[in-house]
C-alpha cells in the first residue's frame, strides 16, 4: 500500500480498516486479518499495525477475543456513526479546498451537482457500452 509520508502511518491504517468495515468488506462480527497478515499485506511494521488496532479497540470498532484475534463490532449503529463521521470528514476536506479557491457555498453546491451529473453520465455510458 502507498502511504502519504506526512501523516502518521498508523492513522492511515485506521482509515484503511474503517473503510473496509464501512464498505462491508469486513462484515459485522467477523474476524479481520491477523496483525502479521496485515503487516505483510500493507508492508508495514507489526508495531505500527498494533498501534492502529489498539486505537480501534479503544474506539470499540473492533474487539479482541483472547487467542483468537480481532473481530469487527456487531453494533450496526456504531458502524453507521463511523460511516457518517468519515463522510463528513471527506466532505469537510473537499469543502475546505474549494473555499480556499474563493468559491461561495452556492458555487460549491453547483459544481458538486455538475460533477455528480457528469460522473453519472459517464457511468451510464460505461454501462451501455
Amino acid at each position, binding site marked *: 500500500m502507498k*502511504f502519504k509520508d*506526512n501523516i502518521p502511518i498508523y*492513522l492511515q491504517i485506521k482509515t484503511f480498516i474503517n473503510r473496509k468495515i464501512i464498505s462491508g468488506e469486513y462484515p459485522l462480527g467477523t474476524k479481520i486479518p491477523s496483525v502479521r497478515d496485515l503487516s*505483510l499485506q500493507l*508492508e508495514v*511494521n507489526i508495531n*505500527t499495525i498494533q498501534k492502529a488496532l489498539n486505537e480501534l479497540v479503544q474506539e470499540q470498532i473492533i474487539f479482541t477475543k483472547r487467542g483468537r484475534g480481532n473481530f469487527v463490532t456487531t453494533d450496526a449503529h456504531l458502524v453507521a456513526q463511523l460511516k457518517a463521521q468519515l463522510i463528513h470528514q471527506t466532505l469537510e476536506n473537499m469543502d475546505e479546498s474549494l473555499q480556499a479557491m474563493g468559491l461561495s457555498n452556492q458555487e460549491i453546491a453547483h459544481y458538486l451537482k455538475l460533477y455528480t451529473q457528469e460522473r453519472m453520465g459517464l457511468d451510464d455510458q460505461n454501462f451501455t457500452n
Partner: protein
Amino acid sequence: MTKILQINDLTYRKNNQTILKNVNLSLDKGHFVGLAGANGAGKTTLMRLIVGVAKGYQGGIVVNGQPADVARKSFVSYSDELRGFKDSTSIKDIQLFYRLVYPDFDSERYQELAEFLNLTGTKRLGSLSKGMRERLMIALTLARKAPLYLLDEPFSGIDVMSRKKIVRGMLNWVDQSSTVIISSHHLEEITNILDTLVIIKDQTIFDCRSTDELVEQEHCSVEEYFESIYDTLPEDDVQK
C-alpha cells in the same frame, strides 16, 4: 525483560579524535529502528561498538541484559562487511563457516533467503558485484536467529526494484521479538517498515522517537525532518 539494548554515557575516541560522546540510547525488543546521520556521523562506529568489534570506549553497553563483549557477540547478528574472508572463498564456504561459528545460524532459513535474494552458492566472493555482496550479507545476517540485528547501509548497491522487494521481505524474515537496526541514507525507502528513528548528529544521539510520533509532532515526513536538522549548516558541510 523488554530491553534489548541499553547504552549509558558512551564516549569513543580514536586517534585523539572524538567520534561519539555522551551517547545514551535505550531500545526495546521487537522494533525496526532506523539509524540516520550524515556521512562520518558515527553510524558504523556505533554498530561496531554495540557488537563489540570496536574496543576502548568509555561508558556502558548492555545487550539483552549482558555487558560482556563475548555475550554481546552472541546476541548481535552483524556482518561487518565480510572482513576476513578471501576473495577466492565461495559463498558456500562462507555459509559453512557461519554455521560452524554461530549456533543460532539457521541453514534452512539461509536457503530460503538465498533463493529470495538470487544467490548462487558456487560463486566466489571476489567475483560478486557490490549489490550481490550486499545480498549475501543480508542473507548471512538474517539467517541467524538473534535478538538484535544490525544492518549497515544494507541496500546502497542493490538496484531500486530489488530494494523494495527486500525491504518488504525484511518484515517476513525477522522474528517478532527481535529488534533490527538499519542505517540508511535513503530514509524514504525504509520508513514504512520502521517504527523508531534514531538520529546521530554532533557526535551524539540527536533524536530517538517513534516515527509516527515524529510525523505527528513535527507535521512533516520523516525525511523532511531529517533534512531540516541539517538546514542550518553552511552548504559545503551539507554536501559532504
